[in-house]
Each structure stands twice: as C-alpha cells, then as structure tokens.
C-alpha cells in the first residue's frame, strides 16, 4: 500500500497533475490493455471537477478523486450523498437515466470517458459492475456467467472460464452440480456471488460494487469480503458501503462523501479511520453525524 497522500480535498490539484503525467501514453479504450506493465499504485480512474445533475438538482459537486490501480477503494457517506451516482459515472451507467447530466472530466487510463469518441458499451466491457441488489438473469447459473462472455464474443474455453470465475467468487462448490438450474433458486447471498462471478468472468480491469453485501447475512458478507480482498490482487475494486468496519477491514483507500454531494476527504483508509483531517468526517465515522 502506498503511503503518499493522494487527492485530499485541498491538495487534489497538485497531486492529480503528477498522476496523469505518470502514464501519458495510455489512450483510447479500443487499445489493448497493458495492465501487467503498470506499477501497483498508478491511478486508473480519476475524476476532475466532476458535477452531476439530475434535472435541476445537483447530486455531485466538484469531485476530484484518483482511484489507484489494483487496490480496494471504499466510498462511504450518508444515504443520498451521491456514492452510487459517482460509481455510475465511472462506467457511464448514468447514460441510461434520461435526466442525468455530467459535467467535468472522468478519465480511465488517462482517457476522458465522456469524450465524444468513447463508446460506452466498450467502456463497460472493461469496467464491470455489481449492483446493490442481486440481479441474476432468469436463466440457468451457467448461462448467467456465460452472459457477458457471449455478448462480448469471448467464448473460447468457456466452460473453463466459467468454472474459474465461480471458484473465484467462492460459489463453485455450492453450485457445481446444478449449473443448469435456474439462478433464481439460489439464496440471496449466492445470487450476489453469482453476480460477482458474472462480472469477473469477462476479465474487466475495474470492478464497481454498489453495497454488494447490504442484503446479506454475516457469513455471506465475510465470504464476499474475502473475495474482494482476493480480487484486489488482479483487479481494481471500487466499493460503496454503509458499513464502517467493512470499509476499514477491506479497503486501502477511503473516500468520504457527505450530504450535498461533496467529497470531504479521500485518503488511506488507516488515516481516515484513525486520524481524519476533517472534523465532519470524524463525526460521521464515530456516529455523531449521519
């Protein structure tokens, strides 16, 4: 884990500049990924001066945030402060909401994803997403994991890829004998792990998780937490959570959003939880303010 201070509210501009110039060669989304050659703490997703509006109301204000590669970044904050909105900006799922408007810049591997020439479908193939509520397709378990592979024409060795993804998601042992059964017969926790398997099967670079454990019991939650830590070896994980302990346990970096859609503090998780700069953050974390 890196110790350098990145993008706290006041220092954001200086740091982010240097972060961008560190990998200027990376460009369009159509290029092959060269992830293996990048060092562990490079920035992969970065927002600069990001504003998001739903119709007239502003949901996010001036967000500057640099998400490091191959680490777990947690986002915490009270309900309605815009965490999900930020997450949806990263893979442009906000495009599906008619009234949503995004201003400012959000780069992925140095390329602004809101540029005209970026194909949101191509972007989403490199940035996977797991939703707050498990949403498996009403198809078989096998077909659920195969869905992304089929839509993205990655059907070589499909059986092996599916087995591996289910193993990574810690679900294989529970479902290996019923791959052709409906995914809807699984329990909520199993469904959520299936959704994670589905997301990692297509081998994205970043995985966005919106409160993936909010509907799960402690055992399923801890399985998912283990999984996230494992995933961080290969993938960049951005996770929204309402659970402070969870954020403290699994993340390397933590971003705290507060009501009104502002990013109050972004730093190493240890620092945020032990010695936050902002009094409001401390109040929020200790439960004095929600």
């Amino acid at each position, binding site marked *: 884990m890196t110790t350098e201070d990145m993008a706290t509210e006041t220092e954001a501009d200086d740091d982010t500049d240097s972060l961008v110039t560190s990998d200027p060669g990376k460009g369009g989304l159509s290029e092959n990924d060269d992830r293996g050659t990048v060092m562990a703490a490079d920035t992969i997703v970065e927002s600069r001066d990001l504003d998001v509006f739903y119709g007239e109301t502003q949901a996010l204000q001036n967000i500057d945030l640099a998400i490091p590669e191959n680490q777990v970044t947690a986002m915490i904050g009270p309900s309605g402060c815009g965490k999900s909105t930020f997450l949806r900006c990263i893979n442009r*799922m906000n495009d599906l909401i008619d009234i949503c408007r995004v201003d400012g810049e959000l780069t992925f591997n140095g390329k602004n994803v809101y540029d005209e020439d970026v194909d949101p479908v191509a972007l*989403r193939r490199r940035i996977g997403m797991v939703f707050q509520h498990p949403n498996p*397709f009403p198809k078989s378990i096998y077909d659920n994991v195969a869905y*992304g592979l089929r839509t993205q024409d990655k059907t070589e060795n499909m059986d092996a890829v599916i087995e591996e993804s289910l193993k990574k998601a810690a679900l294989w042992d529970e479902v290996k004998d019923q791959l052709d059964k409906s995914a809807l017969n699984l329990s909520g926790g199993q469904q959520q792990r299936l959704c994670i398997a589905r997301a990692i099967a*297509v081998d994205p670079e970043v995985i966005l998780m919106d409160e993936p454990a909010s509907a799960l019991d402690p055992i399923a939650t801890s399985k998912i937490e283990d999984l996230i830590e494992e995933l961080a070896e290969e993938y960049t994980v951005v996770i929204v959570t309402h659970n402070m302990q969870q954020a403290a346990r699994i993340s390397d970096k933590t971003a705290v959003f507060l009501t009104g859609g502002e990013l109050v503090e972004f730093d190493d998780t240890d620092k945020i939880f032990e010695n936050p700069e902002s009094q409001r953050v401390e109040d929020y974390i200790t439960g004095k303010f929600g």
Partner: protein
Amino acid sequence: MATRSESGFGEVSRLRGIVFKYLTFGASLVGILALGVLLAYVFWDALGLESAGTAWYLTYTVTLLAPLLGFLAYARDKPEVTAGAIELVGFTLAGGTLSFAAIIVLIVIAGPGVWVTYFLTVVAPVIGLFLYGQYEREATWVGLAMLGTLVVGPIVGTLGLGAISTVAALLGAPGVYFLSLVVPGAGLAAFLAADRFDASRRVALGVAVGLLVLAIVGVPVVDTVPIVARSVWFAVLVMLGLPVGFAVTNTARQPARRAAFALPAIAIGGFLVGEFVVGAIGATQPSPWLDWQFLTSPTSSLPADAGLYPAVIGSVFLIILVSIFTFVFGVGTAVYLEEYAPSSGLLGTVTRLINVNISNLAGVPSVVYGLLGLGIFVNINIQFGPVVYAGIGAGTVLTAAMTLSLLILPIVVISAQEAVRSVPDSLRQASYGMGATRWQTIRNVVLPRSLPGILTGTILALGRAIGETAPLIMIGAVATKYNPPSGLFDTLTAMPLQIYTWAFLPSEEFRYGVVAAGVVTLLIVLLSMNSVAILVRNKYQQETY
C-alpha cells in the same frame, strides 16, 4: 392503567371483507353460468341431442360419463396424474390443429408444386440454420443468415417456381409430401428420442426408420378409405403422430404419471362400448348437424346438405395471415415504443401522443376498421408516376387479413408493451453493466422475459379477429362461396360470415341446427388454435424460469 378488554385480544371486524368476497364470487358465478348456458344451448342443437332416446343417454352415462367423472375424482389430488392427462389432451389437440393447418395450408391452398418450392428455398434452410444455431450456441451469424434466407428465399423460390414444380409433378403429390414431411419428421423423432429421452443411437435410429416404414405400410390401408388421400395421411402421421408420440413417451417414462393413460383409455373405450351397446339394444341415436358431411361440403339451400368447408378454410387462412402480420408489426411497434423511442423532450411528447392514440384505437368499433379497409384496400385508385395502386380487391383473402390485422393491432401492441414494460429494470441494468449493447439486451433479456405475456395478448386478440363479421361485410367478402380460397387474391368467406347468413334464412332448421353446428365448429377451431399458442407460451415460461 390502560383498560384491557376481558377477552384477551379483542376482534377486528372482517365484515366488509366478507361481503366483498361474496360479491366477487357472485359476479364470477353469473359470468360462468351465462357462458355455460350458451355452450349447452349451442351444443344441444349442434349435436341434435334432442332426438336421442333415453336408452342412448343411459348407455353413454354408464359407459362414458361415469368413468370420466370417476377419473376426475381420482386425479383431483394427484398433481402428477393431472399434469400427465393435461399433457396428453393438450398435445393431441395441438397435433390435431397442426395437421389440420398443414392439410389446409400445404395441400389445399398451396398444393405440392408451390409447397415443395418454398420448402426447398425457405423452410428447409431456415429450419436447418435454426437447428445449427441450437447446436452451435456461439455461432452468432446464424440469426443474420436466417433473416437473409427469409428475404432471399422467397425471391429465389418465385423465380424457380416453374422449374421446381415441373420436377415435383414427376414425383407426384404423395411423393412430395413424403419427402418434405415424413422424412424430416423421422429425423425430428430420432432427435427428440435421443435428446429428450436419452435414447441410445440404435433406438433413435429405430424410431426414425419405424416412422418411415409405418408411413409406407399405412398407404394400402389408407387407399381403402375413399375420402382420405395419401398426402393427407402423411401430413397427419407427422403433425399428429409426433406430438402424440412425444406426450405418450413422456408420460410413460414417469411412473407417477402413468395413471393418466386411463383418460384416453376411458374416452376411447367408453365410446366404443357405448356405440356397441347402443347398436345392440337399438336405442334412438341423436341426429347431429355437426358431422363429417357438414365439415366437408359447401353451403347449400337444403339444411341437410349445407356445410362449412369453404368458410373453415377461409377462416384458417385468415387467422394464419393475421397472426403473422400482427405478431411482426405488433411486437415490433411495442418494442420500439418501449425500448427505443425517446421518452423525454419534444420527441418524448410525440411518443406519449402515439401511446394515447394507440389506446384509443383499441376501442374503435370494428365497422370503422371495415370502412378503413374498404377505403385503403378496395375503393382506391392512386397513381405514383407510372405505378398505379388500385387496391387489392374486394373481399380477397389479403384485403380481409390486412383489415382484421389493423383491427387487432392496437390490442396486440398494448398488451405487448405491457409485457415489455413488466421486465424489471434491474435486469436491463445487469445486461448493460455486462457491456451488452441495446440490441443484445433486448434480444437476450427483454424479449425472452416478455414473450409469454406477448403471446397471451396475441391469443386474446386473435380470438377477437376470428369472430369478426362486420369488417368482412364492409370490405365485400361474399357470404356464399362454394370453393375455398386458393391464393392471396382469391375471394373468401369466413365462418362468422357464413353463420351470420344462415341465421337469417327462413328455414328453422338453418336458424337453429346449422347455425349451432357452425358456432360449435368456430369454437373448436378457436380452442385448438389457442391450445397451440398456450403450449408455446408454457414452453417459454419454463425456459425463462
């Protein structure tokens, strides 16, 4: 110091709920009773049950009715047996409908020359591609190739019609139907045996060869029945034999379901025994209006000779065309309006306006659609440069089919929209989140999920179309026709039209007996058509869990 009632918790009044429950019960009772009376009334007349003697009733009560009721009582609390019985009856009905449709479309309307041409250029390649697509799931070009075949195939077929028909004529009609129906049917049977019932290769091959042998061995037997042609035998063998064989095998291999075989056994056995007893004791039989003669002859001035044959063929022809038109245009419109059309801004207002208009169109009386059909398909003569469009003829099959399609299109669109809208947004998001395009999302998530709902709406709408009289009168369909239509531009008569005409004839036998027979035929055709659609719907409901 809260005051507590003596009797523990006290009681919450349910009075309003109970009153409401019995009100709804009463309403449904009235509806069911009215329907029951209507059915009993027409069946009574159509089957001529009035003239049957007491002995006849007694015999059939003992041999048929009592055992059937006994079976129902036995199967009441055995879901597996009930499911088996429903499957047996459903597949038989569906098979009957399929063979009926095949005889009408392939043999009566198209004839061997036309059929074999389009079989070679369209049907066979499309089915082949479909099967390949099922087998090789990852071949994404298959869908496009099917679409291409559907466009190019008919053109090639039309060009080669003369040549292929000549070759087909050398084979003879039975030969054509043997090669185009029985041989693929044998392949299908072998595939089903191996795929669904895990039969070994030898058994599957045996099934296929058995079907072929049965087809040929049956020919001499068929030749002894004067009204059945060899072509008809081949069509029925495949279209009825395969579904029935499938249902029988499926039931036989599940021990819990085997008792379901009692139903067909009781029905057939009871009928045969009853027939024998009635003959032996010389009981007076009913003299039904609805008999084989009624179904196979055209109308006549004598009630006893009158029949519904041209109208049945006309109606089935119509319903096939209408279902194709409405399904393609209705589902297309619904998917566009729900998934693609802009929902905000100025264009969103236009979309909303269109939606409101479609709802209004669904309520427009059918005469108005008749008028519309008359205006745009019959009484018209416009010139676009060198091209003159003078309509597609008064009372032709195509005019009638397009008019009826316009009539039910709004209903189909609305119900399909409802079905598409009922697909949860979270599934669409899941699909987009996986990097699927809009087309992939619609194709793989939205359509499979909404198909059962779309089919339900289409079935209901088609039921309305098949019973319409007014628009047919408006576009000039003739009431009295002695031959069935044999092409799109042939004039036709349809069942409701023919029944309507009979209902105003002076002879009482026409007004009661013949009309009732016609109504019962209409109901049976409607019911068997629905049974096919319901089977298709259930299959999709199972597939999407």
